[in-house]
């Protein structure tokens, strides 16, 4: 079955372009503004939007997303609240929406109920950053029976046997963590990053999204050469945080999204992204 996410990648691969996936913590900076920002991100070229369920102990996240999560929880955001917010934004956003949640809120609700509620809200896929693939069985069953894509993470130190397991269970796209670190650290583009992605490509056709530490159009443009998607989160949170009024927060997010999307879609710097990607050897 072709999911909404598959369709995005089919379309972009056909035209040789890289998808842009912005992230926003659900309920940040407040509920109403969050919905407006999701809509603005959709209008600024987002191909898929990632919405985070705020969690009390986000151990894969750096300071920006930790802060946003704390703020959203202090504002009273809940798991159901995030689903409602997605449902409200859904008709105004063309891009598929994926949910990011740590595993405890997912298990507290129960995988089956979580999957059903997510689907009902119009969610296309779910990312669980602290759920290793070999412990995901109950979640995989629930997700697949509700037609949700299961987006797993792979890291620079993931071994080949594990990588095989991960790509076998991943649907929609693989979330490749650009570095050993937490979200919002600074990205260093190294040869090994490109080699790792090539290695994944030799195992599977699954689209590869790269996240963690991507903050500038220059980062995005460089990654477009090898990735099918680029995920940006902390920098969006930082831009929103720097603004005081709802209007300026929405505008700041849209402005950053527009420039990142432009870098990804139009390549900037001359070279065609796909051409460069073909240049990477698959050894």
């Amino acid at each position, binding site marked *: 079955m072709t999911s909404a996410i598959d369709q995005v990648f089919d379309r972009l691969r056909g035209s040789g372009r890289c998808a842009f996936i912005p992230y926003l913590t659900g309920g940040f900076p407040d509920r109403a503004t969050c919905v407006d920002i999701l809509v603005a991100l959709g209008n600024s070229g987002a191909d898929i939007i990632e919405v985070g369920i705020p969690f009390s102990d986000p151990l894969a996240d750096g300071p920006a997303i930790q802060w946003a999560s704390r703020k959203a929880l202090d504002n009273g955001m809940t798991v159901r609240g995030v689903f409602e917010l997605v449902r409200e934004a859904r008709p105004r956003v063309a891009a598929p929406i994926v949910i990011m949640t740590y595993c405890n*809120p997912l298990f*507290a609700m129960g995988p089956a109920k979580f999957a059903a509620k997510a689907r009902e809200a119009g969610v296309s896929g779910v990312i669980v950053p602290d759920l290793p693939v070999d412990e995901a069985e109950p979640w995989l069953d629930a997700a697949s029976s509700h037609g949700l894509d299961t987006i*797993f*993470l792979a890291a620079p*130190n993931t071994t080949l046997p594990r990588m095989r397991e991960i790509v076998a269970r991943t649907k929609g796209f693989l979330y490749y963590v650009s570095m*050993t670190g*937490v979200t919002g650290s600074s990205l260093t583009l190294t040869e090994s990053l490109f080699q790792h992605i090539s290695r994944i490509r030799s195992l599977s056709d699954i689209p590869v999204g790269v996240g963690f530490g991507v903050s500038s159009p220059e980062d995005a443009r460089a990654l477009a050469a090898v990735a099918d998607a680029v995920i940006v989160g902390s920098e969006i949170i930082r831009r929103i945080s720097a603004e005081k009024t709802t209007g300026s927060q929405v505008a700041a997010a849209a402005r950053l999204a527009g420039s990142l999307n432009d870098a990804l879609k139009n390549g900037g710097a001359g070279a065609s992204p796909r051409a460069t990607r073909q240049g990477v050897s698959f050894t």
Partner: protein
Amino acid sequence: MPETLVPALEELDAAFQEARSDPSFMRELQELLKHYVGRETPLYEAKRLSERLRGPRIFLKREDLAHTGAHKINNTLGQGLLARRTGKTRIIAETGAGQHGVAAATVAALLGMECVIYMGTLDMERQALNVARMRFLGAKVQPVESGSRSLKDAVNEAIRDWVTNVYNTHYILGSVVGPHPYPLMVREFQSVIGREARSQILEREGQLPDVLVACVGAGSNAIGFFSPFLDDAVEMIGVEAAGEGLESGRHAATLIAGSVGVLHGARSYLLQDGDGQIIEAHSIAAGLDYPGVGPEHSYLKDLGRVRYESATDWEALAAFHLLAETEGILPALESAHAIAYLIRSRENSDPQRMVIVCLSGRGDKDVAQVGQRMGMKS
């Protein structure tokens, strides 16, 4: 657990399994436990305490007399040697009361490794003495401002560091929590407490005790103490921190009042709300101030093999004073929770019964805090 840590955990598991069956590793650990830590620690009969309580015979397993003043060194030494064996050059650890931080910093100094200790700023205030000790031992104490600014948040920060520096760093987790192999490994390094106590009481009294009592925060001293007795007909009681009272909602009684969930890579009882958000724990004893508990404790609770009780902040303070007055021993506020249970459970007043309490740490670190609390009360 984030995917980045999975290879590190697999590597650690393999290294631990290999090391525990390597005679040279075990010999080095035994030598250090004997000559550096000062093991075996005494099993002392607290006769004046028994008399005062008109209670059973009470024996104290004196982990407070181990080098650095608590049982934590048993584990940090084992993990430190393991870190060196796996070629890591940097050690990180979380700490609550500071006892684990001090023990980790001590081992890092002994082995000549770089050391960073994560500690919540709330705990840095109430355990200033241990902060100074860690710094003198050459460790960097990294303040943690997030969340409840205590143990749980220090663990989060240590995990974030480990994810970032996984190639050269070993994370010395201080208790029987976290992902596999930590709960198993920490239990194995701490089970020296129970093995010694078991042979000491047999040698001295010719029979096993009737009851074991230990405080339970995340649960390392209790698991280490209990595990060698699990096949014996010995009653076991773990005492959790009831903080300001179970009904107040401000406590750390995870097993008694929590529900099952996943925190820091382990499925166990947790303090959490209906949405799976972790609720902040509360205890006067920084080392018990954790909203999770070792998964093996959850298992032993569900089996009914260990009974879990609780003691409040004030009960622990009263026990602190009672042990000081009757025996000349200042217990850590954590360990005072185990004594507090004895004070409350007067039903076991048969003078032939034998109870061993794990006195997991010494109370010097708590003197300022206790003085302040008593001053506030009067």
